C-alpha cells in the first residue's frame, strides 16, 4: 500500500470485536475535525451573529471542543459500550441492599407518553391536571403502604429523602421548642445515614449491634436522653434481619421526645407484612428505584419520597400537589403551612414517580405482598442452600437478604470475599455487595429479589458452592484469585486511579 493511503489520522476506526473483548476508544478519539451528526429544523428564522449584538467581552473565541463524529460512529460507540455492561436484563444481580429486581417494560411505555414527558414544569395548573392527579394518587398509595399520612415526592433519591426527612424532624422539634440535637444510628447503617445527619445539622450517635445483629437496646437506653432528636433505622436492617424489638425501640425513643426515621432501602421485605408506621416510625423515605422497580439507570435517576405521620405533615417540602377540597376531581398546589421549603428544583423526578405508580397499580395489594413474600422466601432458601459452605455471622430467619461472611474461608484458604465476588462473574452472575455492612468481616450481602426464579436462585447457590469448594482445593484455588477472566477487563488497579486521578480525557 502506498503512503498515499496513510493520511488517515485524528480519529481511530470504529471497528469492533463482536463481544467487546477489546478496549473501546473514547468518543474523543473517534473525533475527526469537521465531522458531524446533528442537523437543525429549517425554522425560517434568520441566523444572527451574536458578535453583532453582544459585547465581545461576553463571547467565546473558540467553540466548545466537543467531539466531531458521524451518527454512525456515535451509534457504534455507545452500542459497543452497552455490550461492555452487565445489567438486570442480562442476568441475576444479587447485590445486597440494592433490590435489583426486574424492571417492567411497560413502565418504559409510561415514561414515553408525550402527555407525561412533554409537559413543562412551569405550566399553569389547568394544563397539568393529569400530573397533579398522578402525584396525589402516588402519595395515597405510598402512605397506605408505609402506614403514613402525607408524603412529598420532591427528593430525587434515597439520600435526598433522608436529608429531607431529617430537616422535617428538625423543623418539627424546633416548632415544639425542643433543642435536641442528636440522631442515633445503628453501627450497621448505610453511609448515607450519618452523612445526612451531619448535613441536617444534627450530631451522629452510633449504637452497636448485639450478638444477634440487632440494635443493642441496652446500649440504646444508655444514650437516650432529652438531647436525642431521633433515631434512624432501616428494618429489616442491613444484615437482612428484622429488628424484633422495633416497637419497643420506638417507644423508648418516643419517650425521650425523639422521632423515628425509617430508611426505606429495605422496604421490599415488608410490603403488606409490616408497615413502618405500624412499627412506630414517624418519617419514612422510600427508594422507588428499589422497591417499586424503577430501573436504576447505572446509578440513577431514582426517587426518594418522604412520607410522614400526621403530626409532621405540615412541615413537608412544598409546594405539594393536592386535591382541591371544593371540587371533586380538580387538583392544585398547596404549601404546607410550616414547610421546610423546596428540596428540588421542580417537583422531584416526576417521571420516575409515574413509573413507580404504574408498578404499584399493576401489583396492587396482593401483588405487593407477594413480591415481599417471595423476596423473603428466595433469600431464606438461598441462605439454606449454601449453609454448608458459608458462615452466617447471625442466626435466624432473614428477610429479603442476608449477609454471609467469607472470613472462615479466607482464614483457611486465603480466598477473600472479593475473590468470591469476582469469581461469580465467570459463572454468569453479578456479584453480591461486598465488605458492607462494615460490622461484618469479609461480608457478602446477598439479595436475590423476588423476580428470580427458584431455578436461577438454585444456579446461584450452585455457583457459590462451587466457588467455596474450589477455594479449598489447592489445584483450583488460584483460578479464583485470577477471576474474572471472561469479562471485558479484569481486576483494576484502583490505587493508581486514586493516586493520580485522571478524571477527564
Amino acid at each position, binding site marked *: 500500500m502506498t503512503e498515499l493511503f496513510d493520511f488517515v489520522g485524528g480519529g481511530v476506526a470504529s471497528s469492533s470485536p463482536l463481544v467487546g473483548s477489546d478496549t473501546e476508544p473514547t468518543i474523543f478519539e473517534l473525533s475527526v475535525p469537521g465531522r458531524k451528526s446533528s442537523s437543525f429544523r429549517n425554522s425560517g428564522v434568520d441566523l444572527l451573529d451574536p458578535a453583532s449584538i453582544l459585547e465581545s467581552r461576553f463571547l467565546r473565541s473558540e467553540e466548545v471542543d466537543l467531539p466531531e463524529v458521524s451518527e454512525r460512529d456515535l451509534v457504534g460507540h455507545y452500542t459497543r459500550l452497552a455490550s461492555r455492561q452487565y445489567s438486570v436484563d442480562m442476568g441475576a444481580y444479587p447485590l445486597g441492599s440494592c433490590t435489583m429486581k426486574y424492571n417492567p417494560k411497560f413502565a418504559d411505555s409510561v415514561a414515553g407518553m408525550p402527555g407525561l414527558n412533554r409537559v413543562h414544569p412551569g405550566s399553569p395548573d389547568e394544563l397539568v391536571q393529569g400530573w397533579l392527579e398522578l402525584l396525589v394518587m402516588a402519595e395515597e398509595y405510598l402512605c397506605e403502604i408505609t402506614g403514613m399520612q402525607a408524603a412529598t415526592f420532591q427528593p430525587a433519591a434515597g439520600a435526598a429523602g433522608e436529608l429531607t426527612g431529617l430537616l422535617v424532624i428538625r423543623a418539627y422539634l424546633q416548632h415544639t421548642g425542643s433543642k435536641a440535637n442528636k440522631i442515633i444510628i445503628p453501627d450497621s447503617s448505610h453511609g448515607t445515614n450519618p452523612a445526612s445527619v451531619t*448535613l441536617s445539622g444534627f450530631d451522629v450517635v452510633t449504637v452497636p449491634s448485639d450478638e444477634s445483629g440487632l440494635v443493642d437496646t441496652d446500649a440504646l437506653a444508655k444514650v437516650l436522653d432529652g438531647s436525642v432528636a431521633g433515631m434512624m433505622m432501616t428494618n429489616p436492617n442491613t444484615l437482612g434481619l428484622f429488628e424484633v424489638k422495633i416497637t419497643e425501640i420506638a417507644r423508648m425513643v418516643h419517650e425521650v421526645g425523639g422521632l423515628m426515621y425509617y430508611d426505606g432501602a429495605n422496604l421490599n421485605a415488608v410490603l403488606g407484612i409490616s408497615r413502618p408506621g405500624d412499627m412506630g416510625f414517624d418519617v419514612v423515605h422510600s427508594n422507588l428505584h428499589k422497591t417499586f422497580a424503577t430501573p436504576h439507570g447505572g446509578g440513577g435517576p431514582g426517587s426518594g419520597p418522604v412520607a410522614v405521620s400526621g403530626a409532621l405533615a405540615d412541615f413537608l417540602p412544598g409546594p405539594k400537589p393536592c386535591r382541591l377540597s371544593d371540587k371533586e376531581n380538580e387538583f392544585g398546589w398547596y404549601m404546607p403551612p410550616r414547610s421546610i421549603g423546596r428540596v428540588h428544583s421542580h417537583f422531584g423526578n416526576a417521571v420516575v414517580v409515574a413509573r413507580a405508580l404504574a408498578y404499584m397499580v399493576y401489583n396492587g395489594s396482593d401483588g405487593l405482598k407477594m413480591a415481599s413474600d417471595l423476596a423473603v422466601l428466595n433469600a431464606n432458601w438461598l441462605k439454606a442452600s449454601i449453609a454448608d459452605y458459608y458462615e452466617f455471622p447471625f442466626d435466624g430467619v432473614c428477610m429479603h437478604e442476608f449477609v454471609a461472611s467469607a472470613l472462615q474461608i479466607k482464614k483457611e484458604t486465603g480466598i477473600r470475599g472479593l475473590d468470591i465476588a469476582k469469581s461469580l462473574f465467570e459463572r454468569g452472575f453479578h456479584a453480591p455487595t461486598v465488605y458492607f455492612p462494615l460490622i461484618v468481616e469479609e461480608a457478602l450481602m446477598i439479595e436475590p429479589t423476588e423476580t428470580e426464579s427458584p431455578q436461577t436462585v438454585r444456579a446461584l447457590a450452585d455457583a457459590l458452592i462451587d466457588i467455596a469448594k474450589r477455594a479449598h482445593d489447592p489445584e483450583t484455588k488460584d483460578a479464583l484469585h485470577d477471576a474474572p477472566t471472561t469479562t471485558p477487563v479484569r481486576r483494576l488497579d484502583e490505587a493508581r486511579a486514586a493516586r493520580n486521578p485522571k478524571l477527564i480525557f
Partner: protein
Amino acid sequence: MGSFVPHTDTEIAKMLVSLGLEEIDDLYDHLPQGARFKGDLSIPLGVSEADVLDLMDSLARKNRPTGRELICFAGAGAYDHDSSAAAMALASQSAFVTSYTPYQPEVAQGVLQALFEYQTLISRLSGLDVTNASLYDGGTALVEAVNLACAHSKRSRVLVSRGIHPHYREMIQTYAKGSGHEIVEVGLSGCSTNLDSVSLQGAAALCIGYPNYLGEIEDLEAAKRLCEASGALLVVVYDPVAVATLRSPGDMGADVAVAEGQSLGVPLSFGGPYLGLFSAKGELVRSVPGRLVGETVDIDGKKAYVTTLRTREQDIRREKASSNVCTNQTLIAIQAAIHLSWLGKSGFSELSRRCFSATRYLSDGISRIPGAKVLNRNFFREFVVELPIDAGTTVERMAERGFLAGVAIREGFEDSPLVGTLLMTATEKRTKSEIDSYLQTLKEVVAK
C-alpha cells in the same frame, strides 16, 4: 392480578417444605405482633399491563403537553429543545437502563466509560478541570456548591444573587436550616445583580447566574474581582446552551460552575428527571461531591475505568463525607453526553446561535407590541417582558389559544418591580411562523 414473581404454587410449596415451613407467613413468625400488618393494604388488587397503561394514558390525557397544540415559549430553567432520535435510542439501551451504580468495574465498563466521557464533555463546556458524574438537578448542584465553598473556606456566609432561579434560592434556604450557613441575598438592579451593594468580607462564596434566571448576562468579571479581594469562591450557575456561545464560567474566573443540564437533550418531563452539572477547579477535587470516574488499567495493562476518590463518599467517610449524594442521575448524564456528541462541536454552537436568533426575533416583535417592554439589557436566549396586563392572566389566555406563553414572575421576587412580568424564550424548535403567530396572538390578548 399482576405480579412479576415467577414462582408457581408448586414451587413455593416445595421451597417451604425444604425450609421446614408450612406457609409463607411462617417466615414472619418472629416479627413482633404489634409491628405485623394485619389484613390487606387498602389499595386495589393488581391489574393487567393493559389496564395500567389505560390508567396512565387517561392521566396523561388530562395534561396538555407542549407540541403543535401548545407551542412552548416557556423556559425558566426548562427548555423545549429537540432531542435526537439516536441519542434517545442509545441512552435507552437496557444495559444502561437496568444496571446499578458501577461498583464492580469489570462488568461495568459501559457505564463507567460513558461517565468518564460525560465528565470530560462538561469540563470542556464549563471551562473547569473536574466534573462529577452528575447531581440531581440544577438546584441541588448549587446547594452542593454552597456546601463545598463553606467546607473549603471554613466560612459560613454565602451571598446569593436574586438573579438566580427562585427555586434554587429556596433550596439553598431549606438546606441552610441543616447546615447553618448564613444565606444573604443580593438584590437586583434592573435584571442584573447589584454588585455595588455586595460585601464579600468573610464570605465563603458569591453565587451568581450566567445568564441569570431573567436571561441577563451578568458581569462575571466584576463578580470575580470582588471574590478575589475577599477570598470568597465564585460560584456560577450557567445555562449550558448559552455557554456554547458565551465565554465559559471557568474562563470568567468561576471556582465552581453548576447548571441544570435539562437543555442537553432531556425531555421536559414535568421537571424531572433532570440533571445537575457540577464542575470545579482541580484544586477542589477532594471536596467535590458525588461520584467521580477515573481512568486506570487492569492487571493485564488494558485501559479501564473505575469510580475513584471514594474516600470523599459516605460509604467510606460516613458522617464526614463531602456530601450525602449516592444515587444520582447517571442515565440522564449518559443521555446528555450522547446528545452533546451528537450535536458535536459546530452543532452545539449552531444550536446556541439558533436559540439566540429566535429569541432576538421574538424580543424584537415584543418590542413592537403596544404597551409591552423588554426589561433586559444584555440577554442571550431568554428575557423579561412588562405587559399591559398581568403575566399570570396572559399565560392563561394564551394557553386557551394554543401557546405556553412563558413563565410569570412571582414567587421569589416579592417586593420587586418584576412581579407580574413575563419570562419568555424561543428555542431552535420555534419556527418563524410560530413566533409570528405568537406575537399576533399576544398582541390581541394583552390588548383586551
